[in-house]
């Protein structure tokens, strides 16, 4: 069959029945597709996207700003893949959405925010338009060595390098790892973006460049094991780089911390706090890492871990995935994913909303501000909680 646009999985797009299971978590408590929840049109749901992509491939609708917004409002949270009832093709849903975006990129018909993101990446190597030399500033004063054959590379990524909330988290994680004796080095000002968001936003060529550069550098430095701050980087390194010849042992920092706690290399004092944990999509649904952060939190004496109504495979995304952290296609408002998620956290009665992703940290902190509930809840990364609870 001839289609108007090239897509690798074009031949299965018509198989979506748009039954809508993909909109929900497994127990149907609320809509779990962030863009559908925010926009409220079926066109912004996974089934809607599938049907519109088919219409677009068949030239029944044209490329438009609206169509681009519909595609780019997807936060790539993988809830649809998790919940779709069609076992024979559900795993390809995220690929189909990404391929459609790639086709828009190739046609040059993408939302201006996405275009700006790519321009920043091409010119500056990061979305913040900041100099490459400043990439390592987050580590100032911590005494973390440059990588030179240590056991692990500690990779922080763009958000950890440049964003204020991300830097704070990178410093928490990096210094703690160092303090407990984990042999690690950093790349500092020579670190290159992992490209996860570039890929999901559809810039396949730029992603390939970034990935190849990272793989080259990692191999040159004889890096074999990587600890990532950001689950988005974990995803790129663990799931995509191997397809490009980059095979590394990749861990999220919570996995390393959980091991250290298990080995009793981190000891805790009593830390009485009621805490709820937000599963980052790229840690949870994309990479099935649910236990490690919980294991850490549960090992802290006095800390009470309470779950949000939607957790683990059913967690509701903060809205930052799929590049929305940078492009903000979904936008603010009462039904923005971060605000919805913060309300869910508030419902638990927790005083701390624990996070394990710098993008989630920022999104949820903003959501908390939007709700005006900063007095009731604090967004804190898992490493900072460990630091607070750690026996001196």
């Amino acid at each position, binding site marked *: *069959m001839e289609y108007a646009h090239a897509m690798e999985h074009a031949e*299965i797009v*018509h*198989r*979506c*029945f*748009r*039954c*809508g*299971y993909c*909109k*929900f978590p497994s*127990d*149907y*408590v*609320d809509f779990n597709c962030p863009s559908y929840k925010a*926009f*409220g*049109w*079926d*066109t912004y749901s996974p089934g*809607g996207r599938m*049907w*519109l992509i088919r*219409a677009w491939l068949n030239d*029944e*609708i*044209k490329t*438009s700003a*609206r*169509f681009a917004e*519909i595609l780019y409002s997807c936060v790539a949270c993988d809830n649809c893949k998790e919940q779709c*009832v*069609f*076992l*024979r*093709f559900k795993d390809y849903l995220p690929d189909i959405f990404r391929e459609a975006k790639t086709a828009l990129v190739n046609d040059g018909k993408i939302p201006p925010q996405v275009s700006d993101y790519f321009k920043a990446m091409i010119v500056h190597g990061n979305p913040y338009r900041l100099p490459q030399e400043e990439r390592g500033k987050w580590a100032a004063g911590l005494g973390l060595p440059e990588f030179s054959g240590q056991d692990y590379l500690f990779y922080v990524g763009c958000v950890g390098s440049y964003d204020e909330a991300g830097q704070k988290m990178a410093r928490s994680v990096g210094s703690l790892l160092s303090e407990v004796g984990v042999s690690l080095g950093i790349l500092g000002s020579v670190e290159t973006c992992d490209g996860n968001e570039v890929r999901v936003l559809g810039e396949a060529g730029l992603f390939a460049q970034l990935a190849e550069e990272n793989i080259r550098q990692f191999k040159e430095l004889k890096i074999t094991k990587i600890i990532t701050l950001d689950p988005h980087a974990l995803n790129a390194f663990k799931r995509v780089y191997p397809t490009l010849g980059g095979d590394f042992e990749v861990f999220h920092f919570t996995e390393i911390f959980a091991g250290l706690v298990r080995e009793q290399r981190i000891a805790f004092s009593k830390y009485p706090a009621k805490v709820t944990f937000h599963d980052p999509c790229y840690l949870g649904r994309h990479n099935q890492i649910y236990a490690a952060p919980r294991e850490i939190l549960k090992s802290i004496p006095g800390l009470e871990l309470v779950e949000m*109504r939607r957790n683990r495979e059913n967690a509701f995304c903060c809205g930052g995935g799929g590049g929305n952290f940078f492009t903000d296609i979904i936008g603010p408002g009462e039904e923005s994913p971060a605000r919805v998620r913060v309300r869910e956290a508030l419902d638990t009665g927790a005083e701390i909303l624990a996070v394990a992703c710098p993008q989630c940290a920022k999104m949820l902190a903003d959501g908390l501000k939007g709700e005006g509930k900063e007095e009731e809840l604090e967004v804190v990364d898992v490493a900072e909680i460990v630091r607070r609870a750690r026996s001196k």
Partner: protein
Amino acid sequence: MSDILQSLVEIVGERGVSNRPEELWFYSRDPGVLAPHLPDYVVAPKTTEQVQRVVQLANREGIPIVPMGNGMALTGLVIPLKGGIVMDMKRMNKILEVNEKARYAVVEGGTSQGVLKAYLQDHHPRLRHSLPDAPPTTTIAANVALHGQGRLTQQYGFNSDMVTGLEVVLPTGDVCRIGSPSIGPYWFSKGPTLPDLSGLFLGWLGTTGILTKVGLKLYPNKKLREVELFVTDRVELVPEILYRLTHLEMLEDINVWFQPVPLVFKDNFHITIYFTGDTEEEIEFKRKMVWDALQEFIDSKDGGFMAVEPMKEMLLEMPQRGIAAFADVPKGGGFEYSGPITLIEHFPQYAAKVVELAAKYWVLYASSARIISGGHSMMFSISFAFNRVDPDMMARVKAALDEATAFALEMGGIPWKPNFMEQQMTLEKMDPNTRNLLLMIKKQLDPRGIMNPGNWEPAR
């Protein structure tokens, strides 16, 4: 911007109305085999007042208006046959009240089945509603508006029988409460002892008004659920088997299904028997009663209980996700079914017809009948899967479904959620005085003919 669009924006806000090609394309169709037709606008209200104002505008301007839940009836009931406004009700999704002791819930007109199920589990675990096996995104209002069925239909009748009150926006824009909420604050009766005005809206497929609130009966949620699967290859015995099971007056649900693939199911009729209890003792008692009721068929070697363990999780799932998955059997994203309501004693004839139609039109079938109200009738589904990129296959499925409906009418059955052509066939078959009454009521309620036009209209 046109005056109409401007007016709609003033009512529902910019994010509540669209005339963009993407929404117009999507809301012009459903997942079934009927041809699409573009609306002019799609609106998504959040309040009864917004619904009312949109209807007033539509009535004033003579614009067709089509209420929509999740659009999963599959028979084109939300296709705007004459253009106009499609009203997506799903933003009106609040659960307004649960009266635990009186066992009813009041929900907004776009509340989904899944959300009510989860809400009851969280907040009223002793209660449940009659959940259909349709996807959880389907709405309660749409389900009762087309006389849907659910998991408790065997015990308590059609889901529309479980309505305890309605709030309806009439085609003129007036807002009416139906039943006990028209008298006081409680939603415990849709009609009795008043004249039952709910009959003006239930079964009318959105042609007489828009349901903005629904009161719904809730039922005891027993702690335990169990299932048995009885199998026979003698179709003529199915009515008697069902008669004996319904005689027990203790079963939650009874479904009879048969399908040619996978081969393990071919040529057999599977009777899924659900029962509930609060204790193991109660469950085991009911299991014994079920087995005793069918012992004679086992002794005569006409049937037996199939080992249910491998399928138990799937059978007990609510809703059953596997039903939607039937759409991908021909790797094509679609299925549609005719589901006439008919007598259980006609099961063998209907079963033969399914097989005949599948062979004649060279399509894949699956059939599942649900017993209604203790055996007074059944919904017999004649389902055909199709591949959406195969127009010829879709045409064959449509022809098979048309023939199935004609057959059902010949047999004295009533088509369930009929498409507009099946409605015409039904009106033609109907007693003329009854037909005139129906059309007169419709005309009285909707003098300008704006509500879901093309439906419940005789052929010209």
